[in-house]
């Protein structure tokens, strides 16, 4: 068995207490379900001195829904709790689709939504053992060397890997961030940077406590994912779409967000706008899908060849939009 290095373990029972621990201990990693972090610790890509586990904070484990306030999911809710929540099943079926497409049943029983939104970026050249990385020469993401996937670039190109984030961004989700100084609510889209090494803009002292999604009956949303195997695998491409239609089926609002390509979700605003004001036709969908496919530039760093992933983005956009439009 691979043995983990020692660390100090903290398990606060309130957010207040958690914030205090966080601000007084350096090199602290927040532990939620651990399905990503513990693997990183085994591979020695992450070696925290302190672990702050949020599992004993009850306020982070609530799911609430009202038509007015929308949906609020505590960061420590597991993916399978979300999968089995009747309100989400009823009002946000696309979230259920996205959740079900994640990893394996056992991982969904332990992994949390907070952890999924803060999932580390992935790369062939990074998600490896210490031996492996040293054999190749370490990389930008680990802290030195070059980006093996794109040596010509001076930044890390590791891939954004949350399957939920693109959809939730498309659904205009907000996240609540707590630090000892403040409590902030920001759009989920603003949480991410296109930098594989530092793609989540949380300060060391900040905790993501919940995600909230507005409810609007008019909204149609869908999630699409392509992966190599029908379980366990990360996405070759994924997409989250939200469309709003008028009573005459004219598209009034369009959000399309692409994951698994860059280091942050790609919000294809300008291209998506082309759907607005239209009674969306298959031809239009094809046009938008092709344009998005041209617009994305994957690096050779995860499952699937670069051109294949590019193509699959277009295809997923096409399929996801088509399903939405057909079901109007």
């Amino acid at each position: 068995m691979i043995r983990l290095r020692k660390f100090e373990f903290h398990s606060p029972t309130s957010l207040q207490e958690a914030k205090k621990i966080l601000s007084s201990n350096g090199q602290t990693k927040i532990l939620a379900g651990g399905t990503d972090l513990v693997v990183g610790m085994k591979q020695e890509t992450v070696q925290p001195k302190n672990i702050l586990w949020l599992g004993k904070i009850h306020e982070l484990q609530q799911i609430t829904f009202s038509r007015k306030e929308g949906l609020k999911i505590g960061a420590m809710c597991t993916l399978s709790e979300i999968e089995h929540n009747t309100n989400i099943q009823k009002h946000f079926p696309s979230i259920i689709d996205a959740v079900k497409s994640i990893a394996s049943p056992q991982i969904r029983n332990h992994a949390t939504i907070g952890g999924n939104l803060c999932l580390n970026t992935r790369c062939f050249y990074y998600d490896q053992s210490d031996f492996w990385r040293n054999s190749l020469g370490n990389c930008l993401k680990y802290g030195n060397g070059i980006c093996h996937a794109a040596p010509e670039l001076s930044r890390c190109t590791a891939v954004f890997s949350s399957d939920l984030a693109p959809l939730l961004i498309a659904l205009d989700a907000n996240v609540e961030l707590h630090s000892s100084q403040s409590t902030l609510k920001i759009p989920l889209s603003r949480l991410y940077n296109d930098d594989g090494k530092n793609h989540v803009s949380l300060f060391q002292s900040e905790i993501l406590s919940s995600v909230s999604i507005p409810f609007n009956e008019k909204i149609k949303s869908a999630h699409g994912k392509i992966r190599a195997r029908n379980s366990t695998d990360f996405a070759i491409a994924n997409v989250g779409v939200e469309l709003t239609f008028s009573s005459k089926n004219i598209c009034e609002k369009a959000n399309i967000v692409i994951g698994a390509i860059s280091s942050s979700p790609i919000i294809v605003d300008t291209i998506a706008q082309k759907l607005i004001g239209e009674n969306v036709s298959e031809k239009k969908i094809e046009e938008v899908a092709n344009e998005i496919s041209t617009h994305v530039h994957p690096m050779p760093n995860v499952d699937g060849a670069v051109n294949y992933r590019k193509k699959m983005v277009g295809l997923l956009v096409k399929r996801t939009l088509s399903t939405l439009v057909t079901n109007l």
Partner: protein
Amino acid sequence: MNSENIKMSSRFVTLTINGEKKEIAIEPQWTLAEVLREQLHLTGTKIGCDTGDCGACTVLVDGKPILSCITLAITCDGSSIQTIEGVAENGNLHPLQKSFLEHGALQCGFCTSGMVLSAMSNKQSAVSNQQIREELSGNLCRCTGYKKIVEAVKDYSNQQLAVSAPQNDLRTTNHESQSEIKVDGVPKVTGSAQFTDDIFLPRMLFGKILRSPYAHAHILSIDTTKAEQLPGVIAIITGKELPIKYGVLPSSQDETALCIDKVRFIGDGVAAVAAIDEFTAQEALKLIDVRYEILPAILTVEDALKNTFPKIHNDSKYENNVAKNVELEFGKVEEGFAEADYIREDEFFYDSNTHAMLEPHSAVATYEPSATSNNFKDGNLTLWSSTQTPHYVHRTLAKVLEMPASHIRVIKLHLGGGFGGKSEPFALEFCAAFLSIKTGRPVKITYTREEVFYSHRGRHATKMWLKTGVKNDGTITAIQYKALLDGGAYGSYGIITTYYSGQLLTLPYKIPHYKFDSTRVYTNKPPCGPKRGHGAVQPRFAFEVQLDKIAEELGMDSAELRLKNFVEPNSTTINSLRVTSCGIKECIEKVLKASDWKNKKGKLPRGRGIGIATSAYISGAGKEINWLGLPHSGAIVKIDRGGGVTVFCGSSDIGQGSNTVLASLAAKTLGVNISDVKVYEADTDLTPVDLGSYSSRVTFMAGNAVLSAAKELRKKIFEVVAEKFETTSENLLAKNGNYFVANDPSKNISFIEAVRLAEQKFGTLSAVGSYTPPKLGGTYKGAGAGPSPSYSFTAHVVELEVDEETGQVKIHKVWSAHDCGKALNKTLVEGQIEGSVYMGIGEALYEKMSYTKNMKDTFGGLLKSSSLLDYKTPTSLDTPDIETFIVETNDPEGPLGAKEAGEGPLLAVIPAIANAIYDAVGIRMHNVPFLPENILKAMEEKKRSFKTEKVFAEAL
């Protein structure tokens, strides 16, 4: 409430384990798997990947399946945990465990704990097969092909629903086919089966091997000073201490326990550490300072053939980096082509893939010094190892350690899958043994999943050129075949692979003229060796695809073309392979009918297709690899006064069920119930030599050895029973624990009474049996590779759908018919067929060993797919329904007519898929695996009307 701020490392947690509340001192960095296995000794929880990719470590936390290898135990404080050990209650198996046993839903048993726990959740409403597959999709299985697991869970769920239905007691036979339940089934479903890594001995040290980060380099120096100073490090060894070369084949002794002056692939062992715990051993490796002089890495077969690169093995007798070349001609191939009306040539490429058995290699050694001498060679060494071949490990340990073999004992416990990946000695066995000798303490080394990948010995990447001539009526007139095999860094079984690549192409079709040229080269990558279907899988793919093309060109149905050319029973091939029983025609007829071939081939809607392929495979090799003329298998059968029968045989049950087969043969012969037979296997002190579980030999060879010993005992018992009833032995029958006169069953005595009489007359009852194949094969050089006492035959039809936009292939169904001679246990045979089909699907569509390439200023050779996340073995959701047909021929030399089933059914899966893809979307896949991106590429190329015929591998 204040949080507990952990300054001390250890703290107490309360866990309710299988209903029992326990307070346990743990350290925060311990995973739940560590605590369960090492603190609580609940070793039914298995570690297959250690990074959350395989599901073997699944346990229930508060009723939900989770992965204990990536869960910190400290976060389970206050939780209720159920492990496999807690599933059976009050000494009774849980209905789900019974269902697993009855359906034959387990083979090696390594995934079983996790599977059972994932499927445990209460089934309140009817569940579909698809729902079960989803529920189990986080539990990888490499043996079963999932079919029987799904059936077992389905049956259990139906039982749950039928509340009033009477509870069945566990039958000793499977209900569908009256097959005996695996003799090692109960310990496997209850978690008590001990695998090598489950051994914990007092004072045991943990060993780790330092591996080369370079693909090709000279070792200039190794400085272990710093590592030795790390507290907890007890011993360190380097290659110089074990300099004797070995290799599983006498003619390729090119490995050492650890590298001495040169490393040959990334992952080659350089030094080994024994420490008081595994973390210390891990840390010590980082403190060993090795200086290397880097050499150019040879990563392609093309580079291996050039003389501008250094030799990987300086003492190799071939030019450049050629490891072996075989050129043979049978008949006159040019004359054969001259007779042909139609000739075609094609090129193919089959990429490397690996066994990925779920249990990582593990070895535990313990050493006892001599009473009279200080020379370690006079002491006694015991090695438990997860090996398919204890005898070869035994022999090689004696050679390398220069110890008398009589002072070494090698034992194999339950083994979590092999598929050829554990069929020769590995570095950990020598290192554990020598570290134990040096320290006088037990030493355990278990590979990480990454190290399993570096140890490899899987499928050779092979470039192939194939030319076939046929007459207008489809009769094959000649074949010429050239193969270039990428062998990786060492010999392994590679010489045999090189032969098999050519030699086994002469079945199952009549080939009047045949010539082949097969070359294996060394490259700086993990060594390739035998994987299920050894050597024959790649050429079978090429040939079956080419046949399909020929059928199309001739305007013939591809099944008809095959039928036209099949070999006959009791015939001999052009390269002197002797065919005895042969049911290939029945096989193809079964699958054609079941699949409705006639109405589907060429007639399915676009995107959907159907394909066919057939094959043959050996039932053990006719020649023992050491050519010593010794038996290939030996057995002792002993009868106890209490009526118990014990079989001792050196064979290795690796999950396929060979112990069940041996027990069954003894039981049938002696007329007792299988529950009265115990099998002791794979222990070099206790059991006569059997060469091991490889080349599909165990049922045939060990089976014959057991059969002959049991028959001798029966003869003695018959003799005394005949005397008692004043008749002759020929008139007697033995059945269900009774010996009786066939035409007067009232004259009968129990087995126990009969045994007493026999013991009175003959003394203690035991007998030995052994099996040596008859002289087989031709007299030409190389005639030793290919002959087998019998061949199995298989036909598959595959129906699938190609998503023309994603390039993804969804297999709807596979129909498989296999001639295994007489099926001694139908459930086990089906399991072998289903598992082979599953593994073939993995090779065809998902699995690939891919390496970093040489770049401008750095050398490559680093395995990119070194985890079960990156190396993609199919999950339950990627594996289709498989319908199996057992075609029973009665093999004249097989035990009770049986022959192999474990490997043959894999071969034709890959070409059947390729042929179905062609039927679906009109593209010929020449390169394995058929990854979605390659399928899309081929479709685009076809659209642009490029000739796809010459698509060739970019690089090996």
